[in-house]
């Protein structure tokens, strides 16, 4: 590869030579490659020798030029015409000093000499000369833009940073209400509303002009002179009286309304029946009056009634032809209730379709009678043999016969043409008859009552006898009570003895109890016993005098003996005897059995036997389990003989024993007669806060913030609402616009006051 490239270079050289020299003789054509380079050099030397004459001159000149240019300023060379060119000056005039600056001194050098120039200008010029400040050339576009941007940014930043305070305040505010700058809702004080308002718009102005022209009041109190006069016209008493009247009327109205409502609510049929009847009767009476006084109105009324009657007759409402009536008809044969219901309905029908007969239209009497006869047509089952007295059945009533007789008596009179007046009387009588039905009921009640009273009277002697018996019983009871009293007294005596024993020798009892306690201990317990007895004696003295101040039992703990609690430290509270107001007569035994009582006595006697010791044992074992177990890392067989029955030596065991930190003192450390469980409450911890939330730095801080409950149960209603108010409140549909510039101008204090307003209220 290398050789090939060499060849190429050689060829190039050759070409160059040929071009430069033109005709050159080839000294050697057959050359080995090694020699050729040398040859090339030789060739070049030969060619330079040939051009020497021309080049030397130029070189010399250039050198001279270079030397001359070394000192002082570079002089622009004269234009040398070396090539053919169009823009060449004919006179070889060159703009000499083209690149040189023009100095001011060059220009005003002549000025000094000319006397025409004033001194002032000369001075000025000199001053200019001295300053010699030249204006710097303008910055590049990029640079200037950068500077502009920078300045603009700084300006914007200062503007924006003005908002910083407001924003921070809003961020920290407990509540924000949007849109901002709302008028506070709710009632405003009158003063502010009145004084703050002025007529501004042309409409308002006009209105005010009108008002003032007519002497209408504009400000408080807003009353026209007429109104004021009216106010004066009515005195206070009158007004009060009037008001009272109105009040009374209103109250009465409300009472009536309430009554009507109440009555309308009553569901009792019987009540309504009676009520309706009474109303009708009233109406008839009124009607009679009306006939006398105002016949025209009466006629109108009559027509109305007639219309109603016709309507009723036309309708099948109470004709026993409806679905319900049919079903009842089916049942009527067997069911008394159904039958009664049907008959009731028929009765209603009869009542409603009865023609109103008055003196005004006597000619319709016969028709009415016929109608009534029609109405009495009944289904045949009614005529079936039916038995018991049924008051609701008009055909089975006792009065029926009377009615008939009356009718009979009435008929001849009717026939005699006695007139309609008689008829009305009859009707009224009928009403009365119906009334009497009620009376019958009442009478029956009365009778029953009387009967009962009579019975009671009959019973009275028996009762008396009973009373006597009771008295006898009571006497017996008294006797029994006396007996029981005897027994109770006996018991009391016994109790009294016991109490005396207890009161006088209470120590003995306790000592006895303690004896039981002592049984399990030895030696030192003897001392303890004596101590306790002494203590008890002291107690007694103290209880007689004054209650001694309580001493914590932990103080008595002998510091040398850390082993645990002494028996004497447990249950050392001094007792005070309470005097019973009444001695119990009944021995309290939970089941009242004698055996149990016995057992209780025995238990009582041996009470406290080993209770304390058991408890202390329990406590010790609990403490033991709480302690961490000692760890020994000694391995048998290392460094010594191992095997069955061989244990590592004491030294080694001591050497490898790991000391564990003693557990924190138990909660019941100072309480001799209490065992408090050291177990963790895992279920509760699931509901507790596990880690400290963000801004808090210590547990105490966080715990203090959640110490007050928020719920309704612990707070008043208002507080509760204050505590749970939302962070942001927006008005529904209200447009939330960006904050205006005026926000900035507001006093900071004012804002803070607004945000903390609810705090200061309380």
């Amino acid at each position, binding site marked *: 590869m290398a050789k090939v490239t060499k060849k190429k270079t050689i060829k190039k050289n050759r070409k160059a030579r040929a071009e430069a020299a033109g005709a050159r003789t080839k000294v050697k054509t057959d050359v080995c490659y090694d020699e050729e380079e040398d040859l090339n050099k030789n060739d070049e030397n030969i060619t330079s020798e040939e051009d020497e004459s021309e080049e030397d001159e130029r070189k010399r000149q250039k050198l001279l030029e270079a030397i001359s240019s070394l000192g002082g300023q570079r002089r622009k060379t004269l234009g040398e015409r070396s090539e053919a060119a169009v823009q060449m000056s004919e006179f070889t005039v060159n703009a000499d000093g083209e690149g040189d600056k023009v100095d001011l001194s060059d220009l005003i050098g002549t000025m000094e000499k000319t006397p025409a120039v004033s001194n002032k200008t000369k001075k000025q010029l000199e001053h200019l000369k001295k300053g010699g400040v030249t204006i710097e050339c303008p910055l590049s576009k990029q640079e200037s833009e950068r500077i502009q941007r920078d300045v603009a940014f700084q300006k914007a930043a200062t503007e924006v940073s003005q908002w910083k305070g407001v924003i921070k305040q809003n961020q920290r505010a407990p509540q924000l209400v949007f849109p901002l700058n709302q008028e506070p809702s709710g009632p405003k004080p009158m003063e502010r509303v009145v004084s703050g308002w002025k007529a501004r718009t042309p409409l308002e102005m006009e209105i005010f002009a009108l008002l003032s022209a007519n002497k209408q009041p504009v400000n408080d109190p807003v009353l026209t002179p007429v109104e004021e006069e009216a106010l004066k016209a009515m005195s206070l008493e009158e007004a009060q009286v009037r008001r009272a009247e109105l009040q009374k009327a209103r109250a009465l109205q409300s009472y009536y309304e309430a009554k009507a409502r109440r009555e309308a609510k009553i569901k009792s049929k019987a009540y309504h029946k009676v009520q309706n009847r009474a109303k009708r009767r009233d109406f008839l009476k009124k009607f009679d009056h009306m006939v006398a006084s105002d016949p025209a109105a009466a006629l109108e009324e009559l027509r109305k009634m007639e219309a109603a009657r016709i309507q009723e007759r036309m309708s099948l409402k109470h004709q026993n032809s409806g679905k319900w009536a049919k079903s009842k008809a089916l049942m009527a044969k067997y069911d008394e209730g159904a039958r009664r219901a049907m008959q009731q309905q028929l009765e209603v029908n009869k009542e409603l379709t009865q023609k109103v007969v008055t003196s005004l239209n006597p000619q319709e009497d016969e028709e009415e009678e016929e109608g009534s006869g029609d109405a009495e047509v009944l289904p045949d089952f009614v005529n079936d043999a039916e038995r018991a007295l049924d008051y609701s059945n008009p055909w089975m009533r006792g009065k029926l016969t009377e009615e008939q007789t009356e009718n009979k008596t009435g008929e001849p009179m009717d026939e005699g043409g006695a007139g309609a007046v008689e008829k009305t009387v009859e009707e009224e009588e009928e009403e009365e008859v119906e009334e009497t039905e009620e009376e019958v009921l009442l009478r029956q009640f009365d009778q029953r009552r009387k009967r009962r009273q009579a019975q009671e009277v009959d019973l009275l002697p028996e009762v008396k006898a009973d009373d006597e018996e009771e008295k006898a019983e009571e006497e017996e009871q008294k006797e029994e009570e006396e007996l029981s009293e005897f027994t109770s007294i006996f018991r009391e005596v016994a109790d009294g003895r016991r109490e005396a024993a207890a009161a006088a020798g209470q120590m003995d009892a306790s000592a006895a109890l303690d004896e039981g306690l002592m049984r399990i201990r030895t030696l030192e317990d003897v001392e303890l016993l004596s101590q306790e007895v002494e203590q008890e004696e002291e107690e007694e003295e103290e209880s007689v005098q004054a209650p001694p101040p309580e001493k914590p039992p932990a103080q008595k703990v002998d510091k040398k003996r850390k082993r645990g609690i002494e028996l004497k430290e447990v249950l050392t509270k001094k007792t005070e005897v309470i005097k019973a107001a009444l001695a119990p007569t009944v021995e*309290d035994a939970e089941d009242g059995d004698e055996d149990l009582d016995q057992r209780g006595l025995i238990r009582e006697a041996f009470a406290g036997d080993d209770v304390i010791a058991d408890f202390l044992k329990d406590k010790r074992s609990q403490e033991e389990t709480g302690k961490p177990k000692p760890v020994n890392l000694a391995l048998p067989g290392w460094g010594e003989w191992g095997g069955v029955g061989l244990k590592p030596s004491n030294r080694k065991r001591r050497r490898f024993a790991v000391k564990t930190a003693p557990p924190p003192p138990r909660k019941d450390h100072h309480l001799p007669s209490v065992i408090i469980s050291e177990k963790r409450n895992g279920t509760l911890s699931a509901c507790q806060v596990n880690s400290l939330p963000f801004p808090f730095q210590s547990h105490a801080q966080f715990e203090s913030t959640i110490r007050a409950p928020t719920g309704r149960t612990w707070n008043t209603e208002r507080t509760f609402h204050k505590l749970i108010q939302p962070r942001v409140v927006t008005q529904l549909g209200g447009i939330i616009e960006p904050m205006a510039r005026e926000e900035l101008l507001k006093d900071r204090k004012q804002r803070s006051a607004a945000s903390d307003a609810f705090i200061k209220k309380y």
Partner: protein
Amino acid sequence: MASSGEPVVTGSHVGKKKKSAARYWQEQREEERKDGNKVGQDGDHKHQLQGKQQKKQKAKKRKHEDQQTDGKEFISGKSDPFPGPAPIPKENIQKFKRKAKVKKPHHRHYKLRDVIHQSEVSSKMAQKQAARFDLLLPEDAGFLEGDEDEDTCTISQEDIAEAVDITSGAKYFNLKLSQFGPYRVDYSKTGRHLLLGGRRGHIACVDWQSKHLMCEINVMESVNDVKWLHSEAMYAVAQKKWLYVYDSKGIELHCIRKFNDVLRMQFLPYHFLLATASATGFLQYLDVSVGKEVAAICTKAGRLDVMCQNPHNAIIHLGHHNGTVTLWSPNQKEPLVKMLCHQGGIRSLAVDKTGTYMVTSGMDKKLKVYDIRAFKPLKSYFIPAGASCLSLSQRGLLSAATGDIVQVYRDVWSTPVDKPYMAHRVHGTVWGLNFCPFEDVLGVGHGDGFTSMLTPGAGEPNFDGLDANPYRSTKQRQEWEVKALLEKIQPELISLNPSDLGRVDRATFDQRHQDRVEALGFDPLAKEKFTPKYKKKGRSSAGNIERRKKQVAHEDQRDVIRLAVEDKVRMQKERKDREKKAAVLSSHRSALDRFKK
């Protein structure tokens, strides 16, 4: 019931002199009260005298300010004579105080500062408002006062009933029910309804003020205890074998077979839990809102026939025959606290409303008062006959039954007592004893029926209408029931100190994990053990299985190793980076540094 709370006795005992009714806290806080009175009255006086000037000044000032600020005046020309919010007495505010506040952090931590400030402000506001609303509790409690040299305990019930007004007098009555043996008594939470359970099976619900009998049944079995559930619509009866629930009409709703041989019951109203103690030594909790057994704890302490609850923290106290009292919550299988109270067995227990004091009586005929917060004995009394039943009223009266005598004591924990406040003899042994809430009435169930005693100063005169309203209608009751169910406290939250819930759990992750394992019954983070699948055609040979197991084990190990290596590499890289950074920061370049790689 303030009306009978201050019996204006006109009879032989107190009526002769017209003295203002003495209050039983007078002794306690005599000086304090005097001072308070002074402050209250003199202070008021002064306040008025001084206040006028001050107020004038203030008013002036205010006006001035107004003029200054916006130049407006009241049109009426009057100024507010009582400017600013009404003052609140300091004791009132103190009453509603919650824990001390902490020091505010430095300004630097402005966020934290804000949070703390905000909470402080709101809690202060709540405290003030609560104190202000204390005004709405107008009723006062009174008590019985005898003549000079007269013991109040000698005043008989008849005399009291005669002296007080007719409605209060009607609250003393006897029900003669000698047939069905001694009675257990329970009042509903509102104090309106009374439940009687006779030993021989007789059960009666009575609206005791109107004497309206709601239902009466005989269960034809021995009855151990009766208890109202959350409302007067339901009650539980511990019968011979099982626990039954009846409604107020006497219809049997449930027979709960899981709860057998129940001897005593307690109902925790805010947790809807029925706690039962049985003869077999089991303490069981039944959630009556969902009918689920919440916990069954074997106490290993024999027959449990002494039981009471701490209304403050819903802890159940049990008394045992060996003189110990144990405290239980449904969350722990062992007693929270075990304290030795008596040398003999415990006969009865009672805890006061605030959860501060516990009163016990034992077979050793002693009556002891304990501070249950510190577990320390405060007082010890010797009652000659020994108290079989104890009950504490809302205002701290203690009633103790000795045989057929009911004794009522006052202030057993603060001052040493040497004689009872009241005493009353009933027929037969007392078996049940209960103070009626919001009434000055003590219900005594005994062998011969039931006696309703008047005990002036027993009940809380002011009731919380949203919690236990004695005058509520059916509709209100229904509404209350819904709300109470919504606000039901879960049994997991029962603990000795109720404020523990507001503390941050400082346990480590391991402890928490252990709790979780205990709660779930398994370890959720534990890795499943690999069991090779059974393959047919002899490919499940022992060797093959072993090989597969090993393969999996190796893979696991490789994973572990890979992770460890990655970790190591990462650590190294980090360390290098750190060093480089440190070097750059220190800018201590020596000339030879360039040769470092």
